[in-house]
């Protein structure tokens, strides 16, 4: 693969995805919307796990918080403007990430994993046990947010293809933003911290500040995904914050291949489709009810045998192909 192809490939994929609503039905468009939302969510986590070396097991906190923020900001039977509600939801997530970040970044390794999980659970119990967010029933979002410029409606999110395009645009924006950030001096420093935190400190980098910035950005981006998920489903309940959500997104990052960004997109495709297939009653009949068994075994196999994920597999076969051509 030459340099130019790698440069244009993301645009090509985004372009093809943008054409999708012209050829496909409602069901697959909704499924693909879900994939793209999970891709945003996974990329935000990859920034932490794959590039900063921080394994967070509580990333659902920021995803769910943005969903709840939208639900609580929106008047019950009226539309809220996306122009301010999305930035507000993302801002709340960034703020929460900043505050929790100050605490969790005092820990490392196993501690960090447990503490991030514990803070996500704290949020879960706040929404589950109190009436703030409708308790365990959650809140319905009856009307989708509006996107208007003056009196002109730029997009109608009640239409699934309009919503799909919005999600795709935000996914592309997240990808490009992260690629830019990771290529900057800031991004290089993050990877340096992942590889050798101690040495970075000895070289004069204020490691904590870099990690906190990364943690905050990651939480904010997860907020974009959570906001969109809440819009898509039309309701939020504590499940959106549950640790299964955190486990799923971590699985997507690993399955796709951490530290690659595009791997998160591949992983989201693979994971959402896998869930869809395993729980398909037409194919698996009564066994489909227990699809989580197959999913659990699949997750264990990935952990044991595919640590570099699908992106690693692609790279490997790419190297093999390259080796074969040079052999000739």
């Amino acid at each position, binding site marked *: 693969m030459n340099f130019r192809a790698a440069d244009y490939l993301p645009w090509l994929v985004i372009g093809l995805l943008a054409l999708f609503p012209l050829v496909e039905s409602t069901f697959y468009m909704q499924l693909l919307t879900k994939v793209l939302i999970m891709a945003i969510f996974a990329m935000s986590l990859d920034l932490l796990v794959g590039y900063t070396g921080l394994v967070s097991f509580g990333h659902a906190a920021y995803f769910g918080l943005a969903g709840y923020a939208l639900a609580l900001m929106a008047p019950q039977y009226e539309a809220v403007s996306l122009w301010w509600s999305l930035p507000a939801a993302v801002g709340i997530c960034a703020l929460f990430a900043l505050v929790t970040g100050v605490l969790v970044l005092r820990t490392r390794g196993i501690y960090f994993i447990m503490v991030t999980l514990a803070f996500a659970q704290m949020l879960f119990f706040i929404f589950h046990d109190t009436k703030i967010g409708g308790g365990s029933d959650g809140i319905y979002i009856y009307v989708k947010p509006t996107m208007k410029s003056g009196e002109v409606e730029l997009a109608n999110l009640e239409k699934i293809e309009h919503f799909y395009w919005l999600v795709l645009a935000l996914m592309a924006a997240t990808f490009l933003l992260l690629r830019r950030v990771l290529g*900057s*001096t800031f*991004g*290089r420093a993050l990877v340096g911290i992942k*590889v050798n935190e101690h040495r970075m*400190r000895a*070289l004069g*980098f204020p*490691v904590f500040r870099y990690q906190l910035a990364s943690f905050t950005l990651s939480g904010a981006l997860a907020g974009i995904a959570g906001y969109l998920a809440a819009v898509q489903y039309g309701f939020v309940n504590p499940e959106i914050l549950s640790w299964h959500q955190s486990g799923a997104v971590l699985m997507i990052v690993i399955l796709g291949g951490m530290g690659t960004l595009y791997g998160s997109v591949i992983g989201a495709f693979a994971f959402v489709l896998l869930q869809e297939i395993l729980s398909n009653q037409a194919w698996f009949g009564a066994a489909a009810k227990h699809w989580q068994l197959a999913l659990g075994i699949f997750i264990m196999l990935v952990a044991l045998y595919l640590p570099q994920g699908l992106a690693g597999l692609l790279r490997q076969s790419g190297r093999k192909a390259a080796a074969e051509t040079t052999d000739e």
Partner: protein
Amino acid sequence: MSEAVSLGGEPILRTKGLTKQFGGLVAVSDVSLDLYVGEVHVVIGPNGAGKSTLTNLLSGDLPPTSGEVRFEGNDIAGCSADHISRLGIGRSYQKTNIFLPFTVFENCRLAAQSRTPHALRVFHRAGGYAEINRLAGEAMAAAGLAHRAERIAATLSHGEQRQLEIAMCLATQPRLLLFDEPLAGMGPHESQRMVELIKGLTADHAIMLIEHDMDAVFALADRLTVMVNGEVLESGTPEDVRSSPAVQLAYLGGEEILHD
């Protein structure tokens, strides 16, 4: 004490009564020493004498239990490692401590990057800063690694990795260098190259060097400090230290201690 090689002026770093305790164990006890620009100050002593702990206290890797560390007049005792590094103290590690998966250039580029105010600019390509690249290039050249720029650090020979360690130090443009056994594990040829490299740095740096290799010690030392059990046994010019009865008794006479 001797003032033979002092170039005059204030010491760049001065410790007073520096002490580090781990629980009941006193690793560094009441150490006072001065480091001057233009001098190589070598610290020797048997394993467990507290030499590496002393380095860690000066570099901020460990906070002292008590005592004073003044760098260019400011008390830096207990400051964080990154803060001390930014003030102008660079260090190398006894156990090679580099970014193994990165290229030699990227190792040095990261080090140089830490000196720039661009650090938190998130939208500019990292490779686009001419000043950082220049500093990284100069550091590589000074450490004799210019021809290895694009090699992955993990694939370098042990000696080259030690050189890279020094290059990274230099890229941070320190005024004081703390070298913790830079010759460890090196063959005679590589050692010779490293001694030359350190000699070349003496003119515009203050250097504290911990070393076991006695040939290198006497080739480099302007000032020599002997540590035993966390304490300074003797400090002065190499000649003074060599002729000190206490040192002869406790240290230089016992060949076997020297070589472990």
